[in-house]
């Protein structure tokens, strides 16, 4: 009996569910919700199947399918997963049912909402799985549309502005990337092709690499987001409905980091190496700046949104430091950030459902009326600020360690971000949950219900698991991380064109301890 | 006996110029339409001339295409003009500029 093509099934199953939802009459809200939840859970079950058949020791792409699609233009349907995309797909499949659960409070236009959610899931998984540049771009842009509508239709007061800003920022970046993809298509070594794995061998001069890298980088830096391209994020996160915020923070931001890992660095390693100091500076500024700005936010959702800017700064650092520890940590941190920030948004959504406000000043003393929620919130906040034995620490530690091995002094401002994280999160926590409940509304709140516990418990369980026993996760990430780092640090331009490439090319001075890795 | 092709071309150029001027200056949609047809026929004439000149049927074939397109265009265009005339009781093109932003 042949194995199910897990990956393809996982990519298209949400689409099929969305299609099926289309046949449910729009008035039957309860059926729609249950069906959406069931469908999303089914997809998650399928993704578990994929996880099980994934071979942990293997660094390359697995479970792949390669079909010819438009052979005249070298476009194919090529998909596959490695240790990076595996966890991103798992994260998407894991959080979609939870986001559906978090959307019970959506009462208007329920049907299109859930259809958009599932289409979004399909597009996101497609982005992570695609190994054909054309297919990748297709999924990449496809993920934009449902998100645009989720924000624009079901968002809060300033939703139109936020949706527009989100769309324009992302589109501006990705058009540059499209141009670069087309350029790459024509400069492929043999026949022009969009196939990622063939394009990896494309010979490019350093000057070309620089331009193409910058074009890719523009698209990904907006998504990550790196300061100063981040201002779409607080608006979009704040105005989006809970499920939208969760998917935005947990998965959409990862598209940027994933793109850097998968495309920007391996395709143009020399340019990436050359620009590392610049990008690391931006990332560190992002860490400190995001934390500082988060400190003075009055809106709880905006605060969490800015904390994402800081956290993603760590991820980018990990990706670019060029050590296996950093890369593994960065990838793990992508997963971690998805879990903890996703959970924070779910909690803020639960608060909003009760109090219909997101302003910190309107809360206070909630630990007394909603002790369970306060406890869960604290645990998630602690994970977000990197408390050891919770997931955030493992990732941040590996990133900073990887950084220290190669750029020792840089670690000081970066690590200071961890101090600031404690300041803004605990300060916010104190203002929301501690003290005596000042108003009547705050005193009479109801604690987490069964549905909310069902949606938070799995996340909390994972947060603790990754913190205490990250081995199963790291075991699957490490081989791919090692391969990526090796590729990043190898010189691909011949000596004549790459006059000013730092390290790696030539004598390998300063290559550090990772260069010996097989 | 044969007439020099330049006469045909000059005639076609004249027809085309009349068509252009008419299209630009007249305001009645139907008249504009007729001038457009005039331009199309000028082009047809050029095609036929050259086909004859080079002893090649390609030009003749193209004329048929142009004729078909012109017929289709006339159908659709006249239909639109008719509808507009019914609804707005005018066929003056300056009065029907409501598609502008």
């Amino acid at each position, binding site marked *: 009996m042949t194995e199910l093509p897990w990956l393809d099934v996982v990519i298209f199953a949400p689409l099929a569910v969305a299609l099926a939802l289309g046949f449910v009459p729009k008035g039957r809200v309860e059926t729609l919700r249950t069906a959406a939840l069931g469908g999303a859970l089914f997809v998650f079950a399928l993704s578990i199947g994929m996880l099980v058949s994934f071979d942990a020791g293997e660094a390359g792409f697995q479970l792949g399918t390669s079909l010819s699609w438009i052979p005249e233009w070298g476009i194919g349907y090529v998909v596959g997963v490695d240790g990076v995309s595996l966890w991103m797909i798992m994260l998407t499949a894991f959080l979609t049912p939870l986001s559906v659960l978090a959307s019970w409070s959506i009462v208007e236009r329920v049907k299109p909402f859930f259809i958009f959610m599932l289409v979004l899931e399909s597009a996101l998984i497609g982005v992570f799985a695609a190994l054909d540049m054309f297919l990748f771009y297709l999924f990449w842009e496809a993920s934009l549309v449902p998100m645009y509508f989720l924000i624009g239709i079901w968002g809060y007061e300033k939703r139109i502005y936020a949706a527009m800003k989100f769309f324009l920022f992302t589109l501006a970046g990705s058009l540059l990337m499209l141009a670069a993809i087309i350029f790459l298509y024509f400069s492929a070594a043999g026949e022009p092709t969009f196939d990622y794995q063939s394009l990896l061998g494309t010979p490019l001069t350093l000057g070309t690499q620089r331009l193409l890298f910058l074009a890719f980088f523009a698209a990904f830096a907006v998504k990550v987001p790196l300061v100063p391209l981040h201002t779409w994020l607080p608006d979009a996160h704040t105005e989006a409905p809970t499920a939208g915020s969760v998917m935005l923070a947990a998965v959409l931001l990862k598209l940027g980091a994933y793109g850097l890992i998968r495309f920007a660095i391996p395709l143009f390693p020399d340019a990436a190496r050359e620009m590392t100091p610049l990008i690391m500076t931006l990332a560190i500024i992002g860490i400190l700046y995001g934390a500082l700005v988060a400190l003075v936010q009055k809106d709880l959702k905006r605060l969490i949104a800015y904390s994402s800017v800081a956290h993603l700064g760590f991820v980018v650092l990990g990706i670019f430091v060029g050590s296996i520890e950093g890369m593994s940590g960065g990838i793990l941190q992508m997963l971690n950030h998805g879990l903890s920030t996703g959970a924070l948004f779910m909690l803020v959504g639960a608060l909003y459902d009760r109090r219909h406000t997101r302003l910190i000043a309107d809360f206070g003393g909630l630990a007394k009326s909603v002790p369970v929620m306060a406890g869960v919130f604290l645990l998630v906040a602690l994970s977000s600020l990197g408390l050891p034995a919770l997931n955030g620490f493992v990732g941040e530690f590996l990133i900073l360690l990887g950084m220290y091995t190669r750029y020792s002094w840089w670690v000081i401002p970066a*690590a200071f971000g961890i101090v600031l994280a404690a300041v803004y999160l605990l300060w916010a926590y104190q203002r929301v949950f*501690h003290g005596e409940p000042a108003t009547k509304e705050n005193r009479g709140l109801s604690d987490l219900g069964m549905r909310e516990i069902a949606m938070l418990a799995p996340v909390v369980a994972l947060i603790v698991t990754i913190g205490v026993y990250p081995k199963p996760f790291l075991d699957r990430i490490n081989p791919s991380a090692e391969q990526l780092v090796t590729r990043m640090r190898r010189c691909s331009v011949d000596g004549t064109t790459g006059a000013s490439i730092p390290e790696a090319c030539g004598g390998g001075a300063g290559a550090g301890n990772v260069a010996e890795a097989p | 006996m044969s007439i020099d092709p330049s006469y045909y071309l000059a005639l076609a150029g004249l027809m085309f110029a009349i068509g252009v001027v008419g299209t630009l200056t007249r305001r009645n949609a139907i008249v504009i339409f007729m001038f457009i047809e005039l331009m199309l026929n000028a082009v047809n004439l050029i095609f036929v001339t050259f086909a004859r000149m080079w002893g090649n049927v390609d030009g003749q074939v193209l004329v048929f295409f142009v004729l078909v397109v012109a017929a289709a265009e006339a159908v659709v265009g006249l239909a639109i003009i008719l509808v507009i005339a019914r609804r707005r009781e005018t066929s003056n093109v300056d009065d029907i500029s409501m598609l502008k932003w």
Partner: protein
Amino acid sequence: MKAFDPVLAPYIVALPLIGALGLLLLGRRLRAVAGLVASATVGVGFVLGVIVLVQMLGVTEKGGHGREAVVRVWEWISAGSFSVNVDLLVDPLSMVMVLVVTGVGTLIHVYSIGYMHDDPRYSRFFGYMNLFVASMLLLVLADNLLLLYVGWEGVGLCSYLLIGFWFERRAAAGAAKKAFIVNRVGDFSFLIGIFVLSVTVSSLTVSSINEAAGGMTAGIATTAALLLFGGATGKSAQIPLYVWLPDAMEGPTPVSALIHAATMVTAGVYMVARFSPVFEASGGLALGVVAWIGALTALWAALMAAAEYDIKRVLAYSTISQLGYMFLALGVRAYSIAIFHLVTHAFFKALMFLGAGSIMHSLDGEVDMRNMSGLRKVMPITAFTFMTGWLAISGIIPFSGFFSKDAILASAWHQGRYALWAIGAGTALLTAFYMSRLYFRIFEGDLKVPEGVHVHESPPSMVGALIPLGVLSVVGGVINLPGLLTLDHFLEPVVGESEVPSGFTPWILGAIALLAGIAGIAFARTLYLLPGGATRRAALCERFKTPVDAARNKFWVDEIYGRGIVLPGKAFASFCANVIDARLVDGAVNGGGRVVAGAGWLFRRAQSGYVRSYALTFLFGVVVIFSLLVFRVAL
């Protein structure tokens, strides 16, 4: 001979952890038995600790070697060339700490059963306490720096949770946050220290770091040692990061006793002793810093303690001061002496905190010593046990504190650090003075209590915990009595032997230390006990107005930090958010949008809607293109 294999060690940590999980998850359903369950998990841990200790003492290899073992629990993080595991290191040093933590911990748990009895969050309290004990045990048993860091942050978290246990009170919530954040600053330094060591040694286990320390350059060793010490200043409340500890007294009193006196705050001392080879390798600089910070903190905190009226805050400053002594000991290479003082301090300071708790329990939470006196008559057991603690910390022979404090001063003298010795001896006098002040004001004189309070001795579970601690405060000194049991000798395989002066000198030094204690007590007696003390006090305060004022205001350190760091930080953050983000970055974005919209408005004019103008434009375009073509052909 059978090798030493402490299979029980993981259970010592696991028991309180399971207790904590059970209590926190099941919550109120366990209310009836929460206190007992929590005490039992820690108590059984203590028994297991004793069993392991007996096994350890059974190993009698020469020089006490072979008394250490590493127990692998599971593999933790591994990426690239980096890997750390969850391993527990069982050796004499960690066993001393385990016994202190579980022993004192058990007593405080039992005490809490009575103290917290009426609290609505009774089981949660014990859940947090158990979690604390588990984290602290992980800290002391950790075989690598990273696992130690996990325990280190874990105890910090529990400290946060327990200081803010009564979070309805603004002050408590603020103090909890302050404690966590100030500690984070220290942890920042600690974390970078971990990176330095990890990269230098390429392993984080205790043994490999300490073995590699000898081969480090002085620069690296100094950097690493000072960074680690930076972490210790946070956790162990030393200058400049001590400010959180006095505020931490907002927590329930058993918490102050367990976390902020006996165990967590001594984690820094333990850590420095654990990695003493790294400090040694720095060639004196790092140790000098440790010693001087310790000595200065001891003096500084003692000054503030003498001016404080809040009982618990006096004890908090006293704790800071005593921790300073421990660091002083570490800085003069008397590692085992530092641990010795850590142990005796755990006994008498926990005792005094619990005594203070007993008073608060009886006086409805009153903590201002000006509002009470003569309590000895109504609370005899509390008074008597408190007295043993008072005499111990004042360094009166034969109470435990005398031996450990004297040993510290003697070591300082022996190392030729006479200035440090002088500060230590002066602080000893000051210590005796402020502790006597506390004791005299509360327990001696005529009975005076706040109005409407019914004074009574505390319930049995509370005094039951006081008595054993009282006994330990009296006799605790014997664990390092030369010739009898020597802690010094027991710890030697881990931290090396402390050099103690021989001959006649130690007797003189001991006598001076004792005299300092007696002088302090006598001075306090003239001011607080003898008739006319009040007028003498007033005269003294008048005469030394400025320094007394300064000490009463805690030398304005909180204000300086507030104005110098917190306010500018917030102002800068607001600047980032409101100016840079909203105006500059978003301004550029919205400006870009406006430019596009403006351009659109401009070009829109071309769309007149007049077909003829379109056609004209079209014609114009055709003409241009055509002429271009012709022009090019001509070219």
